[in-house]
Each structure stands twice: as C-alpha cells, then as structure tokens.
C-alpha cells in the first residue's frame, strides 16, 4: 500500500540523495541498481520522457485513460440528450422527419464526446502533474530541463554510502545529499 501524503511530506523534509547523470542509459542503470537494493521510492527528473528511465522506475500505468473514457462517455450522452430535449422543448416539424432524429444527432453526440473527453483528459493531466509535483522531493534545477537527469532517493530509503556508490558506479557526474 503506498504511503499516505503527510507521511511522504514528512520524509521529504529530511531530504535525500541526489545523483546527476549525463545520459539516460546511466540514469536507468542507476535506478535499476537502487531498486534492486530495495529503494522503491526512487524518483527522477529529466528533460524528455526517456523510455528506459521510465521502465527502470517501474511505475504503474496512469489511469488517465479511464478518466478520459468517462469524460467522453459523458459527452456523448450529453450530446444525444441535449439535442433530443431541445427538439421536444421546442417541437419543430422539419420536412416531416421524426421530432427526435437520432441519426443526425449522432454528429453532435460524437463532437461532444470528443470535446468532453479532451477537456477531461486535460484536467486529468494537469491534476496528475500537480499531484506528482507535490509529492516529489526532487530539487528544482534548470539542468533537469536542459541536458541532465536527476535521480533522487529520499533520506528514509537512501542507505547513504551504498546508494552513493551505486550511483557513482552507474556513471553519475555528481552525487550529493540535499536538504
């Protein structure tokens, strides 16, 4: 079971070990070694989503897809229901066609599905990003947006010397303890 947010915040206050890498390969190697050693809560900051780093971190898949699906479904329902309701609310005979014509309303239902799905997806991405930012303990350094990768092990998990040695072995250009 993942630790509760206040517990994570408490741990972060204690700082941790920060290793800086030039290459995603090295960072991935270090993360794999650290996780083998039992450090489950390793975190990383990187200028692009490098697949090997993400694989090494072993995060579970995001649930954004389900949230987007729910948003899209709600949009499609809204599209059909809204058009049907307005047709009944102001009944207008158009060429003798049925008052509630589901076939032409499919266009509106489809567009609403995409619109609601996209906006739900946007909201989920932003909430997910804010949430992960709040719980991480990585120092905010410009180089992690530039050409370096930061790997962070919270103090509660970092066994100091062994972790440091593992990172250096993997090719870290800088290893430091951050408050």
């Amino acid at each position, binding site marked *: 079971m993942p630790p509760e947010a206040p517990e994570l915040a408490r741990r972060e206050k204690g700082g941790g070990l920060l290793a800086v890498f*030039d*290459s*995603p*390969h*090295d960072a991935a190697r270090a993360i794999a070694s650290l996780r083998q050693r039992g450090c489950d809560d390793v*975190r*990383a*900051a*990187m*200028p*692009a*989503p*490098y697949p090997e780093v*993400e694989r090494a971190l072993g*995060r579970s*898949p*995001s649930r*954004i*897809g389900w949230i*987007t699906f729910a948003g899209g479904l709600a949009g499609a329902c809204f599209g059909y229901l*809204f*058009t049907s309701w*307005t*047709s009944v*609310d*102001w009944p*207008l005979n*158009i060429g003798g*066609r049925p008052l509630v*014509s589901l076939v*032409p309303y499919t*266009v*509106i239902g*489809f*567009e*609403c599905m*995409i*619109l609601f*799905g*996209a*906006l739900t*997806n*946007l909201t*989920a*991405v*932003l909430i*997910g*990003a804010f*949430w*992960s*930012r709040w*719980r*991480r303990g*990585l120092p905010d350094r410009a180089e*992690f*947006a*530039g*050409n*370096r990768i930061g790997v962070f092990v919270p103090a509660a998990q970092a066994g100091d010397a062994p972790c440091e040695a593992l990172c250096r072995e993997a*090719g870290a250009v800088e290893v430091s303890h951050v408050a």
Partner: protein
Amino acid sequence: MSHRELATAGATPAAAGTPAIPDIETPVVASMGLPGPILWTLIVLSGAAAALGGWCWSVQIQRGMVVTGLQNTEGWGVYITNFVFWVGIAHCGTLVSAILFLFRARFRTAVYRAAEMMTVIAVTTAGLFPILHVGRPWFAYWLFPYPNQRHLWVNFKSPLLWDVFAVSTYFTVSAVFLFVGMIPDLAALRARVSGWRSKLYGLLSLGWRNSDGEWRSFGRGYLFFAALATPLVISVHSVVSWDFAMAILPGWHSTLFAPYFVAGAIFSGVAMLITLLIPLRRALGLSDLITRHHLDMLGQLVLFTSLIVAYSYGTEFFLAAFGGTALERSTFAYRAFGSYAPFFWTMVFCNCINPMLLFFKRFRTTTAGLLWVCIPVNVGMWLERFVIIATSLSHNQEPFTWRIYHPSLYEAGITLGSFGWFFFWYLILVKVMPSLSIAELKESAHGEDEEVVAHAA
C-alpha cells in the same frame, strides 16, 4: 544533419559509449529573437492585408450584403470557399501531430509544432467566415444553442449546426493539444530567456519541473489527446462536406464527398505547411533541425493525397457519366466546359498533374521543386472549393435561375485579408512561442542513439 549530429555541438560530453542529451534550446531560443528586415516586412505586409480585409468587412456591415456578388440561387460564394479552404488548411496540424504520432512516424517530430500552430490560426481564420457570411455578425451567437426568453432552440438536424459544433470542437481540441504539448518546452525555455518572455513562459508552463510523475501523466494524456484528435480531424471535414452533400443539388449530393474532402484537406494543409516551412526554417535559422529529409517526407504525403484527390475527381465524373442522372451529367459537363472551365482546368493542373513531379526525388528534396508544386496546390485547392460551390449553384435544377457569380471587390478584399490575418498571426506566433518541440527532439535524438548502439552491437 540528424538530431544526433546537432547534439554534439552543444551537449555536455558524456562518457564514451553513453550518449549525451542534445542542446535543442539554443537554436530554438535563437529562432525567437527579433525578426530580421525580411520578416518584419512580411509581418507588416500581412498586417496591412488583414487591415484591408477588416475595412472591407466594415463596409459590408455598413451597407449590407449588397456589396457582395451574392444573390438568389448564388447564396454561397467566396466566403464559403474561404471557410472550407481554411478548415482544410487546419487539417494538416492534427494529421502531423496526432495521426503520425499514433503511427510512430519519427519525421513528424521536427515539424509538428509548426503544423499545430498553423492549425490553430487556420481554424481561427475559418471561423471568421460564417460570421462574415451571416450578414449581421452581431447576431452570430444565434448559431449556438442558448436558453432564451422565446424558448427557441437551434435546428440540430441541419448540417450547418453540425458545422458549428465540429469547428468549435476542433478549435478547442487543437488549441488544447498545442498548449499541452508546449508545456515542457516552455518550462525548458523559461530559464533561457528574460523579461516578459520569461514571465510568460513561467506562467504558461504551470510550474512544470520535469519529474517522472509529470512525464507519466503527460505521456499518457498526450496519447489520448492524439487518439481523440484523430477521429475528430476526419469528422470535421466530413461534416464540412455534408454542408454540401446533404443538399439535393447536382454536383453536391454525393456520398463521395466526405473522404474526398478529408483527403483534399490533408493535401492542401500539408502543401501549405511546406510553403510556410521552406522560408521559415531559413528565416528562423532552423535548417539543421528541419532538414531536407523532413521536407521529403512531407512531399511524399502531398503526392499520396494528390493521387487520392485525382482519383476522387475521376470518380465524380465517372459517376455523373454512368449514374443515369441527366442533371448530374449536365452539371459536370458545365463544370468542365462551361463558364467556369478555366478555373476547373487550372485546378486539375495544380492538384493532379503538377504534383506528379513529386514522384521524382529531385523535386521532393529541393526547396525550389517543392515550392513549384506546393504553391500551385494552394491555389488549386482554393479553386476546387470555388468550382464546387459556383458551378453547382450556377447550374441547378431550374434553368431560369442560372446565372454567373462574380465576386465583388469587397469579397476579394476580405479574401486577401484572410490570408493577411493568417500569415500575420502565424509569423507572430512562431516568434513568440517555440516552433519546435524541444522535448520530443531530445527523445527522438536519443532514439537515434539507441538504434546506432543496437546496430553496432
């Protein structure tokens, strides 16, 4: 030069065999410097054209629709032509950013941001035309369903309403797609720029810090954006085509219209993108990142869609000739040999014959060759929409209503203004926002490294 080669110039050296991360920020920041004299001239000229269009519109508002060449039976003219044309141009961005993303076409990385920017501006431009066309723009909000005292609702059975929903959804989704994709890049650049730009990027990057959790949400969310945008892009021009196809007018009432319009939209959009990218990559100093290889791939897309469009033209005539409807035959004969024949044959040359030059690699890999094909494609695709609209309305089922449509100078001014509006905002946008995806270029360069390492192994 590949992304990897570019990297070697600016990146921090890494240990042997472990590739470093390329420095994409430097050329991107350099591309956003103050415009040079040529770019300034283009911005001023396009701004002046937009202002001319605005003045023509003000005259139309003042005097009414009588200043246009529109009359009974010819109720649609260059305004709807422009609307369909600009919606078509807008299709390229989503094709390049979403569809090619799902197909894992790596060449899109260097060009998709510029294409997305083009999409957003083109949809905005397209959105002006229904407002212009309704004559009383202050009532344009009647197009949207809203609660009112009279308990009236819009007619959802009308394709025009479908258009309202399709185009407004397309604008929202493409703008969101563009914005979300830019967040990591704005975060990467906020420390590299200063002044108002730094504040703006800091604000728009929403505090992005490149953590793995953020990338996890972003990557998954981006995938679903692409998955949603792909059917959307196909639906939007299908819906636009149904504006015509749902009418029982010869030349319009065809099930072919949806795929034919979608292919045409992608064709014109990619041609416009090439037309924009060739001068811009030089003006912005991005020739090392947007290479001939990228242009070659885009050229192949133009060729492919040109073949679909040519096939559609042929199918239309085939169905008219052998469909057994005299009216349809008459309309298509009028299209090819009637008053609008010069436009029709120019369209055939620009869209079907001239693009065949792209079968030759020499044309796809030289900027002059590509411009020789793509500029006429832009003209040809505008003419295609004009020919579809004008010929069918001029030659409908009732011969006593036949007449030739002559656009007025005000309509011509507004058309020119729309091009000015589009280029003005596009040139501003590529100077204010990063026109390349920094994060994806870094990821892509890394992918190239992986391939090299695997090959060496």
